[in-house]
């Protein structure tokens, strides 16, 4: 049985025919849309490598059926940089050694973008660590990841204060 859904992926509307309702958003992105930046780690919602933004919120794409998300707007790691210009968060990950092998990095970045938007963690390293606990890094780059997110948060805060002043 065929089901068709429409998604906006990184700003582009895509009409998609699903051959099977079992397809997750993760498999749809990787196998059907050739967006392989989103990684499949555990495929069971435990590692966070598959984190994407759905309607602006970070979720695990491995535990989301594509068919249930008809009409959703999705941002993946491919939609984060502007051409060759990296997002400030990506630059901060490089500056702070927020990765080694890089496999978890797309998920870390998408999760951190979600965390920044949620506005709960602020410039508190402990809240950032807690808010990022759904993303595992087996190389153990956690300290660099926290520093990178913290730096972006501090810059955003400074910019906001400048605008107010």
């Amino acid at each position, binding site marked *: *049985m065929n*089901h068709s859904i429409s998604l906006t992926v990184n700003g582009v509307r895509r009409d998609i025919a699903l051959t*099977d*309702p*079992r397809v*997750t958003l993760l498999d749809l992105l990787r196998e059907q849309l050739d967006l392989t930046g989103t990684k499949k780690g555990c*495929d*069971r*919602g435990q590692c*966070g490598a598959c*984190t994407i933004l759905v309607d602006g*919120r*970070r*979720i*695990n794409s491995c*535990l*989301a*059926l594509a*068919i*249930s998300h008809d009409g959703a707007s999705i941002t993946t790691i491919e939609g984060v940089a502007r051409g060759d210009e990296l997002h400030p968060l990506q630059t901060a990950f490089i500056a702070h050694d927020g990765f080694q092998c890089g496999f978890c990095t797309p998920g870390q970045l998408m*999760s951190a973008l*979600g*965390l920044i938007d*949620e506005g*709960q963690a602020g410039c*508190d390293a*402990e*809240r950032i*660590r*807690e*808010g*990022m*606990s*759904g*993303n595992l890094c087996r190389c153990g780059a956690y300290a660099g990841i926290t520093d990178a997110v913290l730096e972006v948060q501090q810059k955003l805060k400074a910019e906001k204060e400048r605008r107010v002043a």
Partner: protein
Amino acid sequence: MKSFDYVRPASIGEAIAAARAPGAAYLAAGTNLLDLMKGGVSRPDRLVDVTHLPGLDTIEKLPDGGLRIGALVRNADLAHDAAFAKAYPAVAEALLSGASAQLRNAATVGGNLLQRTRCAYFYDVASACNKRAPGSGCDARGGDNDMHAVLGWSDGCIATHPSDFCVPLVALDAMVEIEGNGGRRQVRLEDLHRLPGATPQQETVLEAGDLIVALNLSAEACNFASHARYLKVRERTSYAFAIVSAAAHLSLANGRIEQARVALGGVAAKPWRAREAEALLAGAEATAQNFRRAAEAALAGAKPSGDNAFKIELAQRILVRALALASAGTPERIPALPASPFSIHSGALHDA
């Protein structure tokens, strides 16, 4: 994953009709169900997707001052709803101590109530499990069972209910609104989940087609807002299920406890209301000695189901700590490490 038919009903009535069929299951966010389906633990023939049903994702103030929370409200949205967190702070803290930010953004209120046990033998389809395959036995009994139940378990099943959210809710007499074949009815959350007995496969009182549409919290339950905590011991600081947890709510006057609402998590197949502890605390002074007596009463009926005798003492200590923190006062803001007993700050200035 076994194949299934996908149905997207346009109304609650259509949903119930579609879900009544044998082998049908409701799909909300799917954060637990899809995991179980990938492992072959759940094998529904039909998924009835309720996520597009209108009107189930709102938080409404009731005329009597209580709150009605739609079954499709996401865990994160509920925890960060200012009015909700102010009225029921231990529930918000419990929500934020569960799973990860990604999962809380997806998982729903109704789904949380119906999540399945995390017993590894239930998850492993090669193991005997009376819950997954009735009559097959219980490999947890002779296996790794240090995380299993110490209250209300049976020879057939020693699994625990994994929810954090349900623990303070059951203490606060939350009501579950259910729509089914016979119309709409309300069930106390305390009565929603069953103890295993000889039928561990029957986890709730829900019948085929029954759909949880909302959760109701009373205005009376707000009376504990200034002295409410949830504490949870985990094997790591964050993103782990409870070994044991405790929700403590007190109403205090001049250092004396007027009323207490207490429940434990991680100890039984259902969120465990500790009425014996509440009875001892009512009218007592808020002292460490009285908290200890109450905790001993809460666990008086406990017995190990395996290598988990430690959980009985641990549950008592975490309850004593939760009561002490509740009596010190609800923090202004939920701590950076929600529900963590290892947070570097303690007491009323937990977030200092």
